[in-house]
Structure formats: structure tokens, C-alpha cells
């Protein structure tokens, strides 16, 4: 946001293949969230190159970035980030609105994805009527509905207890098994241990 430059990432060289389940670990201030934001085209970077699906993602216009996010990336956040005045089904259906899919069709699809998350009966509930685990499952359903290439999860279990965390991780693993690349940012060791590869960050560089 500010104009003064702060170098958070100081040279990252990594390749994440299609279909991988990767976790990015590091203590706070290590730059892991910044990296995730760059991967999610939510933030710009000053130098270097980021290739997503063999496309160079750099200095995109907002509109183009929005298009890529909609097409390739599904987000899962620590604080769920559901739209508070929309019910579970409408939240899940929202990305499809920006794809230009009709309301009827996208609500139908949203119900289908909620069903996969075992939340069919909660479709009409507002976010504040759902538990943390349920909210996160709604958020995952929303991330999946556009059939993205990559799921970016920023501390997806950060606000959940250990049992629910495990549930959510199982879902993400499940998603990965369907061939979707999943990248999880976490600072919890037991979460990162459930992934195939761990990228450790310290002070803006990858640790080996």
C-alpha cells in the first residue's frame, strides 16, 4: 500500500508442479503471506518472473488480474472471508457471478459443491449461523466452484481447533487428489507434515 519500498522477499526460486500439495512455512515476518499474495495475483512484485500455467504474470491490469484470479485460482483464508449478508449457497455461487453464469445455474452448482462438503442442509444459513469448520468448508466449496488450477490457502486452519483442522486438511488433500494444485501457507508443523513438500521461508529467502 505505502509508497516506501520494503523488501520482504529477497529472491525466491521455486517451481510448483501441477497437482502438487505444497506447504509454505515460516515464522511471522518471513514473507510467506506476501509470497502467497503474489502467487494469488493479489499483490505485485518488483523484479523477477512469476509464471502461472506457463503464462507470465507481471504488471497485469486490474481487470486482467481479476480475470486470471477468477479462472485459475481459488482462495481459502484464515478468517474465511465469507460475505456476511449472503447465505452459504450465495457465497459459494459468487465466483460464478463474475464468470457470467446465470443465477439459477450457479445456485444449482453451489448446492452441488455444498453437498460435496456435506453442507447441503446448511445452504440457506447465513455465515454467522455456521461454525468455524462449516465456514471454512463453505469457503473451500467457493474456491472450488470455478474449477481452478490452484487452491491458495492462507492459514486455512489458523482459526480452527485441531479436530476441525484435520477435517479441513483432509478435504484439501481430497481436492489435491482430483488433480488440483494446493498451496497452503501455515506456521503449524503438523499441518505442513500432511503435505508432499514443504517450502521453508526465513527472512524472505527459501531455507534448505
Amino acid at each position, binding site marked *: 500500500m505505502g509508497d516506501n519500498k520494503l523488501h520482504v522477499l529477497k529472491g525466491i526460486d521455486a517451481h510448483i508442479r501441477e497437482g502438487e500439495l505444497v506447504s509454505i512455512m515460516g515464522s511471522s515476518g518471513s514473507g510467506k503471506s506476501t509470497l502467497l499474495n503474489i502467487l494469488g495475483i*493479489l499483490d505485485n512484485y518488483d523484479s523477477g518472473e512469476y509464471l502461472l500455467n506457463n503464462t507470465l504474470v507481471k504488471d497485469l491490469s486490474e481487470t486482467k488480474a*481479476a*480475470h486470471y*484470479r477468477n479462472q485459475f485460482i481459488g482462495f481459502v483464508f484464515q478468517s474465511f472471508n465469507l*460475505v456476511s*449478508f449472503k447465505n452459504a449457497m450465495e457465497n459459494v455461487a*459468487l465466483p460464478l457471478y463474475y464468470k457470467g453464469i446465470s443465477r439459477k445455474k450457479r445456485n444449482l452448482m453451489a448446492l452441488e459443491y455444498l453437498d460435496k462438503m456435506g453442507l447441503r442442509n446448511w445452504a440457506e444459513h447465513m455465515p454467522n449461523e455456521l461454525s468455524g469448520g462449516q465456514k471454512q468448508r463453505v469457503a473451500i466449496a467457493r474456491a472450488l466452484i470455478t474449477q481452478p488450477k490452484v487452491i491458495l490457502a492462507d492459514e486455512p486452519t489458523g482459526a480452527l481447533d485441531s479436530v476441525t483442522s484435520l477435517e479441513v486438511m483432509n478435504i484439501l488433500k481430497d481436492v489435491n487428489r482430483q488433480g488440483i494444485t494446493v498451496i497452503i501457507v501455515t506456521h503449524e508443523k503438523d499441518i505442513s507434515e500432511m503435505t508432499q513438500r514443504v517450502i521453508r521461508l526465513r527472512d524472505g529467502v527459501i531455507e534448505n
Partner: protein
Amino acid sequence: MFDLDKWEEIFSSIGKNKLRTFLTAFSVFWGIFMLIILLGAGNGLENGLKNEFSNDAINTIWVYSGATTMPHNGMKPGRHVQFTNADIEEIKRTVPGVVHISTQTNIYGEKQINYKNNQGAFEIRASYPGHRHIEKLEILEGRFINDADIMAFRKVTALSKSVKAALFKEEDAIGKYIRINNIPVKVVGIFDDSGGEKGRQQLYLPITTAQKVFSMQNRIDNFMMTINTTSLEESNAIVEKIRAKVAERHNFAIEDQGAVFISNKIKELKKYTNIFDGVNIFIWIIGIGTIIAGIVGVSNIMTIVVKERTKEIGIRKALGATPFSVVSLIVQEAIIITSVAGYFGLVAGVGLLEAVAKNVPPAPFFDRPEVDIMIAVYATILLVVAGTLAGIFPAMKAAQIKPVVALRDE
């Protein structure tokens, strides 16, 4: 750009944020409502003013006699000024700009007016033919008194509609004779007076006839005239000429304000129109102030709305919303709220004015508080456009927010 889906999106957002919708809507509603009420009140005053003046021609000068208050040419003050027919002829002949000149001389004493067995006491005015232009009389049947009547002292009369109705009922009156103190007078015309004197019970006689019949010699009470200008300066110049002429003829000091009273209707109207122009300007200033308050209210609320929705906007952007879609969502919401509220303000304001116009009788200087519907519509459009502009800037700012920032956990 009609996009049903976007509208559903907007309506669901409006429906789920009732308080903020209400607050926005109310400031717009109130702005329009107050503007219309103010403009309506202003027009009511103006209509009332026009009514006050519309019963007579506006470009008239009325001259009434008085008594001298200053010694002049060795004569003591307190002399009564008596006008005669010669005054009228002299004024007409020597003062340029005078078009129609007449008198409205009263016939004193009890007068019995009857036709067969119908009778009544009506106001008798002895005048010249030009009087009908001064009083703006509308001739319904026959004719008004004319110059030939004046020259030949004919015993003819023109009756107002209500006198005719009182004396003749359904019967035809033209050519019949009524009796005034048992003197037969032929009815030559029926007229109606416009404006405030509508329905008055009056009848007109030729001044010369009246003077002869009622032994008034050549006396007249007053005289009045229409002039060929509506400009204040020119009419004032004519007034001065008349004053000089009358002073010379009746031998009093020109600066003697008591000897004659001259009323210039143009000057009087001007006095009122100046006041009402001031009132109108005042009303517009308040009205525009109200509109500005509405605009400020809307922009305030839109700024808050955008702030409140920052997180939602961040979410939407992360899910693939383009800046354009974010801006159009917020702006269209603003348009819908302001236009619906503006429309209701318009309907409520006009409705109230209509109710007042229907149920409140016209008072002096207040009548028909109506509003030019186009002005009201323009004001509404202005407020909607301003509300939209007020929404655009915060919305554009919101659209520029990086989702990272918007989504940052507090």
C-alpha cells in the same frame, strides 16, 4: 446496460442493509420534498399577487381629488379640488401616452332600481366608454356604453351579469327598460368583470347622462386612464405631467401632496414584484441549499458504505471481480436508491401541494401553490446524478483497493 443478474445482486444488497439504505434514501427524499414545497409556496405567493392585480388593467393611473394643504397664489389651504369633465378632456388632449380615460363617479343618495316587480339596490357607476378597458370588463351580450351615448345624453345602461340575473332572471334584457328612481333606462349590454370584482352587482351609465339626470352639473369624483407603456420611468413621467396639468387647472402648488392623490398601478405592482423577486431568490437559495445538503448526505453515506464494504469488495476482487464491476455495483446501488427516493420525494411534495391547493381556500396573496413539474423533475435528476457522482469517487477508490489490504485481518 441492463443486467438482470446485477440488479438481483444489487437488490439483495439493498434489502440486507436496510438502515444504510433508509438513511441514503431519506436524505434524498427530504431534499426533493423540501425543494418542491418551497417552490410551491413561492409560486403560491406569486399567483396570489397576480390575482390581486388581475381585476384591473395593470398599466393604469388613478387620480383622486383632495383638498389643498398649502397656500398658493394668495389662496388659503383647505380648498376642495373638484374635477369636471373638462379635466378629462384636457388631460386626454394634452398628456401624451394616455389611451383610455374615464371616471367612476358615484351617484349619491338612495336609488330605486327595478324592472317590473324585481328590484334591488346596486352600485351605479357613471363612466366613459373607455372604462371597460380600465376595469377589463368582458362584454357578454350587446355593447358597453359608447361615445354616442355620451354625446347625446342617452339613457342607456350596461348591467353586470349578477344585476341582470337579479332583475331579469331568465328573461332577455337587451333593449328592455329598467327604471332608476322611476326614470326609464334602456339596457344595451351585459358584462362580466374579471378578477376580484367578479360577480359584483354594478351597472354603468354614461357620465353625461348621469350628470343630467341626477343634477350633478359637470362634476366628476375622479378619473383614471390606461397608458401606452408598462415602463416605470415612462409611467412616472406621465404621472408628473398629470399632476402639473391638474395643479395648473385647479390653481394649487404642484408639490401639494394633499390636493390630488395619484396612484400609479405600474409603480405599485413593481413594488410587489420586487418583494416577490426577493422571496423567489430566497426560496431558490434555500432550495439549492437543501439539495446540496442532500448531495452531501448521499456522498457521506456512500463514503461510509464503501468503507463498510471494503472487506466485501476485497473478497469480491479475490473471487474475480473486475474494478469496473465493483464500481458499477456500488454506483448502480446509489442510482437505484436515489432515484426511487427522489421519485417518492417528488410524489410526496407534489401530492402535498395538490392537497393544499384543493383544500385551502385562496387567501390574499396566496393561491394555487403549484410547482413546475419540469423543475421538480430536473431537481430530482440533478440529485440522482449528484448522488451517483458522490458514489463514483469512493467506489473507484474502493475498486483500487488491493484485495490484500481489504482482506487483512484486523
